[in-house]
């Protein structure tokens, strides 16, 4: 009796694991009316990416790791620099931001995260798609915006677009991964690791999201140079301002 149910439980666990890789989910989209006339003339302001890296202990407690965080920031920065060279557009660093300007940017980053979460939950996640978004999607619609107030963002006057970047990585410890398998046997859902990455290109005149790439389970180990490069290339995958040469690579 016990064995029979154990076998069933194992089968269930296998099914649910394979479901993760099998599930069809979109990860990026471009606004259909987005077209760039002169790639070389476009100015993109890149706001400070939010990078958080740590370990998820068996208990699920997030454990910050300074070495990983430092490495990830360094590697992702380098990867971003390499990408911008390859992509060939003009990148502008934001000015020093403090006080009211800092709080305004904070509001917009919070709004971007809410929009990115909504895009994932209700447009990319096909099984959970909002009915209105389904209709829109039949016409290849992708219509999400932060609103025209983005013109007031610090540094916006000298740029055409803003790029928002966020990565959050909680690596599962060995204990956590083993726990995950056993938990499945007991009918308890345990998530191992969080690897969320959001990238969005925003039109600084309209606030429209011209392009977004958002995934709660991204690849690339940001603690290594190669992994960070892979993460950055995944974040910037299908980046619409890519030069034809870079895109061909």
């Amino acid at each position, binding site marked *: 009796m016990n064995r029979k149910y154990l076998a069933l439980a194992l089968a269930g666990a296998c099914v649910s694991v394979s*479901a993760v890789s099998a599930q069809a989910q979109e990860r990026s989209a471009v606004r259909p009316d987005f077209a760039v006339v002169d790639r070389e003339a476009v100015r993109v302001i890149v706001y400070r990416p939010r990078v958080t890296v740590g370990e998820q202990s068996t208990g699920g407690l997030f454990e910050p790791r300074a070495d990983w965080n430092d490495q990830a920031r360094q590697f992702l920065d380098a990867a971003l620099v390499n990408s911008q060279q390859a992509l060939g557009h003009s990148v502008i660093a934001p000015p020093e931001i403090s006080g009211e300007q800092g709080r305004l940017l904070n509001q917009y980053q919070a709004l971007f995260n809410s929009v990115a979460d909504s895009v994932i939950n209700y447009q990319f996640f096909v099984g959970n798609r909002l009915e209105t978004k389904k209709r829109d999607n039949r016409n290849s619609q992708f219509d999400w915006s932060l609103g025209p107030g983005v013109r007031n963002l610090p540094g916006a006057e000298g740029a055409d677009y803003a790029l928002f970047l966020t990565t959050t990585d909680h690596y599962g410890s060995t204990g956590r991964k083993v726990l995950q398998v056993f938990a499945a046997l007991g009918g308890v859902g345990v998530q191992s690791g969080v690897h969320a990455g959001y990238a969005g290109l925003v039109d600084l005149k309209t606030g429209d999201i011209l392009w977004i790439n958002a995934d709660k389970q991204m690849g690339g180990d940001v603690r290594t140079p190669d992994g960070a490069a892979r993460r950055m290339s995944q974040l910037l995958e299908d980046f619409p301002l890519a030069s034809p040469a870079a895109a061909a690579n």
Partner: protein
Amino acid sequence: MYKWIAPALAAAALTFSAPGWAHKLMGAGERVEVARSGMALTPTTDWNKLSYRPGKFAERWTMDGEMLNDVIFYTVPANEPLLREVDKRNRPLPQFQANMLAVEIPQLLESTKRIANDVAIFTTTSSTPAKLGGVDGVKFTYQFVGTDELRRNGEAFAAISNGTLYMISYEAPEIHYFDKDLENYRKLVESVSIAG
């Protein structure tokens, strides 16, 4: 002893795989009854009804997701909370009472949001007499900041009829979204009728 393994596995599978539930299209021009109780309305634009309810006596509609535009219909009988309890033992939600005055409803919603959504800053900015579905009640506006630190605005219409609280609230980020869908929400309110 074993019979709860199957449901447990099903539940576990749900957490891993794509949810099979579907949100419902509330198409323009179709008269619908909301929140299972006497309140009916006709949307003038398409809305989505989310498949999970925020409370036993509440129903949630949205355009772009509840984080960006969040309309909740309430039909709450006396001595019930507005939303689902988050921690009934340690942080019970306040309950609607039949002898409440309409002018006191804004504070009921404020208290509910402070407890259920961990809202630390909440300000009611106006409160005026208004009808909902032909019943005399209150229209009020508010601002709040939740745990995601995003400033949001709200507007709600509420009326008490036969010991039941009828309310429609609309909440959206102050930046861009609140203004974007305000008129669509107000048209929902205008079309409401309350039976009984």
